[in-house]
């Protein structure tokens, strides 16, 4: 394990008060700059002295990046909105319960008070070989320590492995994809808006990043359209502990149901690949089908088709299969709201 020094390497700290200033700083310092939101992921890297950025741009003073507001029939959430604010926001609770539950499932109350939605969506992989500071593929090296005959890879990927087998650990990401959210990305060159689904990238495309964000870019807001507002939602997270623990597998789904027929659905599973996985084949399969045990079983089977387990994570296959079944069945997910 990396030695925790609790003493960060020196860097120049900037706390811009406006978005333009922040973008200007990021433009000027390029790959030397580190974006800091709530710091819960950032401080890990800095205190372990694994990342040594010359410059840290802390976003806490930019008011415009905070808060949840109505936008048409949907909502817009500033990237610096804390997870607690997301969980307690009445609009989120009323219209987009799947996000409320996803955000509430993340970490612990203290971490949610400090951690931001932008940071949660942009957080890095938790693979502990990588976090230990070793020069694996994800760190720019030429080896994966997690997929060897002797590796410990219980938490790792069953899909989409391409040299790296780390997974995306976010609890809010699947909800954002299920809700077809749009990620607003700004840089000094302008704005681009990407579907939540395309915000996340796999190791084949970029082995050193989990998101499409490039140096100089900031996630400024997440726009959730009204398309799925008030739909039937399902969220479930399986972790080793009930709080303060990352998902082993989690699921978020949004479903429009007419009587006992599923009209359409969006179903997303995370922590099984480097990108949250939208199960499009399952979505197509269940559309127009009766919502019953048979559909749920078949959907579960379909979901895990093509999974490739590593030495210690084959349990994720039945786990994912069952979570998909349960999402199709709906009902109580066993997740007790703490609010």
């Amino acid at each position: 394990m990396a030695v925790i020094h609790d003493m960060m390497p020196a860097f120049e700290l900037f706390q811009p008060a406006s978005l333009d200033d922040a973008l200007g700083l990021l433009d000027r310092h390029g790959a030397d700059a580190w974006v800091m939101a709530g710091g819960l992921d950032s401080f890990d890297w800095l205190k372990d002295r694994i990342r040594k950025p010359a410059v840290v741009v802390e976003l806490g003073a930019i008011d415009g990046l905070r808060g949840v507001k109505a936008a048409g029939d949907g909502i817009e959430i500033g990237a610096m909105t804390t997870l607690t604010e997301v969980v307690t926001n009445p609009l989120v609770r009323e219209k987009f319960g799947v996000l409320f539950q996803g955000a509430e499932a993340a970490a612990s109350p203290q971490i949610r008070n400090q951690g931001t939605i932008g940071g949660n969506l942009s957080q890095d992989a938790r693979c502990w070989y990588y976090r230990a500071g070793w020069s694996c593929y994800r760190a720019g090296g030429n080896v994966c320590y997690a997929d060897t005959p002797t590796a410990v890879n219980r938490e790792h990927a069953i899909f989409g492995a391409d040299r790296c087998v780390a997974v995306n650990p976010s609890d809010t990401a699947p909800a954002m994809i299920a809700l077809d959210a749009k990620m607003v990305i700004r840089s000094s060159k302008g704005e681009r808006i990407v579907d939540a689904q395309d915000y996340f990238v796999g190791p084949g495309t970029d082995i050193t990043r989990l998101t499409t964000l490039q140096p100089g870019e900031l996630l400024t807001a997440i726009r959730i359209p009204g398309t799925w507002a008030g739909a039937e939602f399902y969220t479930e997270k399986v972790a080793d502990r009930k709080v303060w623990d990352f998902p082993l597998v989690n699921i978020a789904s949004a479903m429009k149901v007419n009587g006992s027929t599923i009209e359409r659905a969006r179903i997303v599973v995370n922590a099984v690949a480097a990108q949250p996985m939208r199960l499009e084949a399952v979505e197509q399969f269940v559309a127009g089908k009766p919502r019953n045990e048979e559909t749920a079983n078949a959907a579960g089977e379909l979901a895990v088709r093509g999974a490739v387990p590593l030495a210690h994570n084959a349990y994720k296959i039945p786990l994912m299969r069952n979570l998909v079944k349960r999402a199709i069945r709906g009902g109580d997910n066993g997740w007790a709201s703490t609010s």
Partner: protein
Amino acid sequence: MGIDFLTRGITPWGQSVFTHISWDLLWVSFFAGVVFLAAHSVYMLLSAHSKRASADVDALEAKLKGLPEKIQRHSLPARMFHWIMAASMLTLLFTSFLPIVGVKFAWVEWHWMAGLVLAASILYHIIHATFFMDFWSIWVGPKDIPELKSEMMRELGGDTSGPKAAKYPLGNRLYHMAIVVTGIGASATGLFMMKKVQTPFFTRDPYILADATWSWMYVAHGAAGVALVGLTMAHIYFAIRPEKLWLTKSMLFGFITRRQYLEHHDPTRWRVPGSEPVGGRPSE
């Protein structure tokens, strides 16, 4: 801003090892290729390059009556090898370097599949060339000094009486040499590197070699790969130059014409059926 040649990493045992060559070197190879191309084009515009004079060719043609109209230069298997190798080489170059210059896609699977094709075709070529072709016709050695000298003289527009090329002109053979070193270097290391990535053939295991050995393997693979960028650029440039098109065509159709044979080659050094004069050997 300086250029870094190698990037480093730390192993779990605290050793510092090389992880890759610096991809700045890709640009070095690319620009070296561009500069070479530009310099060569200018030079070609300004210099003489006489082939064998047309009167001499007429005389030779009259003497070597047995020469057929078309002379086979590359057999079908040799041509197939060449084009399979070319396709796999281009695939390897594009799959490895496009992502490095910013065109991101899942490249590794395409890369190693093309790598296997290249490695198999090289193996085939070695066997074929050793047993079924004139193995030594492609190599370079001290015996080539007279040819080098006369080629230089010719380039400068001077004396053309020295030896002309045997089957392969000297430039071709020097190029082949560079390709042997880099191509075999990239293929041999690439085959080992397959143990690092997901393939259907075996379990990944980085521990078959020490970290330091891997580090040199990645450096060698990258360096050979980068060198192949410049070499391939030069190769394609020559293949499409107007005065070399006859050679490119021969790689497509297999033959050259009698006059091309006599213009560019020495019938005593590249013997083909009919290259001996009727009634005796040509004077050497």
